[in-house]
Structures are given as C-alpha cells and as structure tokens.
C-alpha cells in the first residue's frame, strides 16, 4: 500500500509537471516562464487558497479544536526554528544558522496546496481552518530568526547594525515586524482568508460566482506553477555545492523529523487523517518566499544562496515528491480513518 501511495503521487499531474520543469533544466531546454508570469500564479494560488479556507472556516466555525490546532501550529513555528538553530550552530555561524532555522520554522504554501490536491484525489477530507494555521505559521519564525541572529551577533556587529541607519534599535524592530507580518504573500493570504470568511457569512451568493475562479481553475494553475517551480528548483540545485554535506543532510532529514513531531502533536490533538497530513506538511516544509525576503532585509550578513538553495532545491522537491505520500502512510498507521 505504501509504495502505491508514493506511485500515485509521482504519477499525478502536478508532480509530473514539477518533474518536467526539473528535467528541462537538466537536459538544457530553454523553456522558461518569464517574469512576472510566475508571480501571477503565486498571487492567484494565495488568493484562491485563502478565500477557500476562509469560506470553510465560516462553515466550520471557531470551536475549541480549531483554536487548539491553530495554537499548536504557531507553537511549532516557534519550536522548530529554535531546535534547528541549535543543530545548525554546530557547523555554521550565527547569522546563517538563524536564517536557515527561520526558513524551516516557516512554511511553504505550495507544498501545502500540493498536499491538499493529493488529499482531494484520495478523497480524504480536511478542514478549512488548516489554512488559518498555514497563514499564522508564516511569520513567527521570522521573528525568532531575527532574535537569534541578534543574540549570537558578535558584540561589535551589534553596535554597528544598531547604529547604522536608525540611530537606535527601536526602529529596526518595526522593520522586522513589517517584514514578518506585512510582506505581500502573508498579507494576501490572510486578507483573502478574512474575505472568504466574510463573504461566506454575509453574502453567500458571491461564493458560487467565485467558484470557477478559485476552485475550478485551481488544479490546472497549480500544475502550471509547479512547472515553473521545477525549473527554479533545478536551477537552485547548482548552488548546493556551496552548501556542503552537513547542510544537504539537514535539508533532507529535517522534513521527516519535523513531520514526525507534527504527527505526535496531531495524535495528541485528535486531528482527522486529512488534517494530520496537512499539519505534518506544515511542520516539514520550509519557506523559500517570505522568509528569504525578510532575512535579506533584516539579517543581510547571512548568505541567501544557503537558505534558498536548501529550502527550494532539496526540501521542497523532497516533500512534494516523497514526503507527502510518506507522511500519508504514517498518518494511516497512527490515525484512524474518519
């Protein structure tokens, strides 16, 4: 049964288009999706997933399990970067360790979406409030990362970076929070979630009219975007030689370990099979959009090619290709079917 799930994932349209993108780079095709078209798809996916999540949240309501799950998700997004940092610090300087830890504490919306599509094909249910968990897990890790970088910074650096632009440390914090909570993707996701909630609650006639855009088109648009993600991930693979064996090992072992932690929490919370898989995927995935952008601004001393190439070049493909079905196998082992 295990291998059949992996195979089923490998042979689904989104994953196949992801491979097509990777293969294109490997064989040297000049296929490219020119900027800003990928941005169109990423904005679309965030808007659609947020809207649908909010809509379902309005239907399920904000009961105790919902709030507990969301709380646990936020807690994981604080714990994962802390433990990752301790491990990464063994081999890396404080700046890079903090930036990479922040990536792994945060999440990848596309991995989450791919997991949702996987569940849809398997006809396993999941709840809209998991999107709220997704939205709230994006930002906290950024704050943790910045704090860790500050704490471990050599004394003289701390002086300089405090002085340089703001004259004091206070303004700096505004920037960190701005980057963490108001960057475009977090903002659009949360905004669409709220809109979906409000429309479902107050003008449900609008839901049906949104359906062709946010629901029907979704799967195809995901395929198109994963094609591009394949191209980009493959290009990132080249940077990995700079990363070294330690980081490569980290980026392939962190996902299953974090997924196991997520499974444990899900069992304790009594989540359904579908929600458990999504929770595991949230813990296992690493951010290559919001966090890198924030780290570049707030911890410029860290090397972007390290945190981007690991999160995008290894962890993302691992989760999309092997991780998701693997976590489903584990879910079925430990969680009774709904």
């Amino acid at each position, binding site marked *: 049964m295990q291998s059949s799930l992996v195979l089923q994932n490998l042979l689904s349209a989104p994953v196949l288009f992801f491979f097509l993108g990777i293969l294109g780079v490997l064989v040297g095709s000049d296929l490219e999706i*020119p*900027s*800003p078209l*990928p*941005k169109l*798809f*990423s904005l679309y996916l965030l808007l659609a997933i947020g809207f649908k999540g909010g809509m379902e949240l309005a239907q399920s309501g904000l009961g105790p399990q919902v709030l507990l799950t969301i709380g646990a998700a936020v807690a994981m997004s604080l714990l994962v970067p802390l433990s990752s940092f301790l491990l990464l610090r063994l081999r890396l300087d404080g700046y890079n360790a903090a930036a990479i830890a922040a990536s792994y504490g945060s999440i990848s919306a596309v991995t989450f979406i791919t997991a949702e599509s996987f569940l849809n094909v398997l006809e396993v249910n999941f709840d809209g409030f998991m999107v709220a968990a997704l939205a709230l897990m994006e930002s906290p890790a950024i704050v943790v990362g910045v704090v860790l970088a500050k704490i471990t910074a050599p004394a003289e650096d701390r002086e300089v970076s405090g002085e*340089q*632009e703001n004259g004091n440390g206070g303004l700096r914090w505004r920037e960190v929070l701005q980057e963490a909570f108001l*960057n*475009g*993707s977090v903002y659009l996701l949360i905004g669409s979630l709220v809109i979906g909630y409000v429309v479902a609650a107050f003008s449900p006639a609008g839901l049906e009219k949104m359906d062709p855009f946010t629901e029907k088109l979704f799967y195809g648009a995901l395929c198109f975007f994963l094609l*591009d993600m394949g*191209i*980009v991930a493959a*290009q990132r693979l080249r940077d990995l030689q700079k990363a070294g064996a330690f980081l490569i090992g980290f980026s392939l072992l962190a996902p299953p370990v974090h997924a196991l932690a997520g499974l444990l929490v899900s069992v304790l919370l009594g989540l359904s099979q579908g929600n458990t898989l999504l929770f595991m995927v949230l813990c296992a995935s690493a951010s*290559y*959009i919001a966090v*890198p*952008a924030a780290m*570049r*601004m707030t911890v*410029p001393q860290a090397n*972007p*090619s390290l945190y*981007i190439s690991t999160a995008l070049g290894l962890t993302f493909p691992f989760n999309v290709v092997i991780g998701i079905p693997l976590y489903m196998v584990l879910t079925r082992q430990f969680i009774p079917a709904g």
Partner: protein
Amino acid sequence: MKRIDLILSERELNRVCKAITKAGAKGYSVMRHVTGMSPSGEISEAMDFSGLGANAHVIVFVDDDLLGAVAAAVRPLLKRYGGVGFVSSAEPL
C-alpha cells in the same frame, strides 16, 4: 555634470532612492528586472516570484557639486547590502 550609475538589489531600491533624494538630487531614473553577475554570484530573474527579485539600475544626473553628497548618502547602503556605483561625466543635451 556627473552621471551616477548604481546597480543594486531591488529589495534595497526604496532606501537608495530616498537617500538620493535626501542628498539633494533633483531626479533619478530606475530600471528594474536587471540581472547580473559579480564576484558574489549571479543574479537572475528566476526568483522574481518570491519578491526577492533581481537588481535595479538607478541613473542619477547631478551637478558636479552634488556628487559628494549623493556619494556619501549611497555608499554606506552599497557597503551594507551590496551593489556597485560608478560616476562619469555628462552634459545636458
């Protein structure tokens, strides 16, 4: 007059433009989606969807006596975040 060419990451563009204005320059022009290579690596448009983006090219034409002020305002930003700046001579058309 002087022509200043700055090439830097799009992420820092706002800061640099503010610094230029504050230094007293009366105008500037910006080209985005600039890619490039430098000793610190290659910058492509591949990550554009992430907002990490590519480089920007800023051109500022200033009177000779303003060069010092603009240079002083921009240099620390280039030093902190990366990016390069060059100056040449130019005359109004």
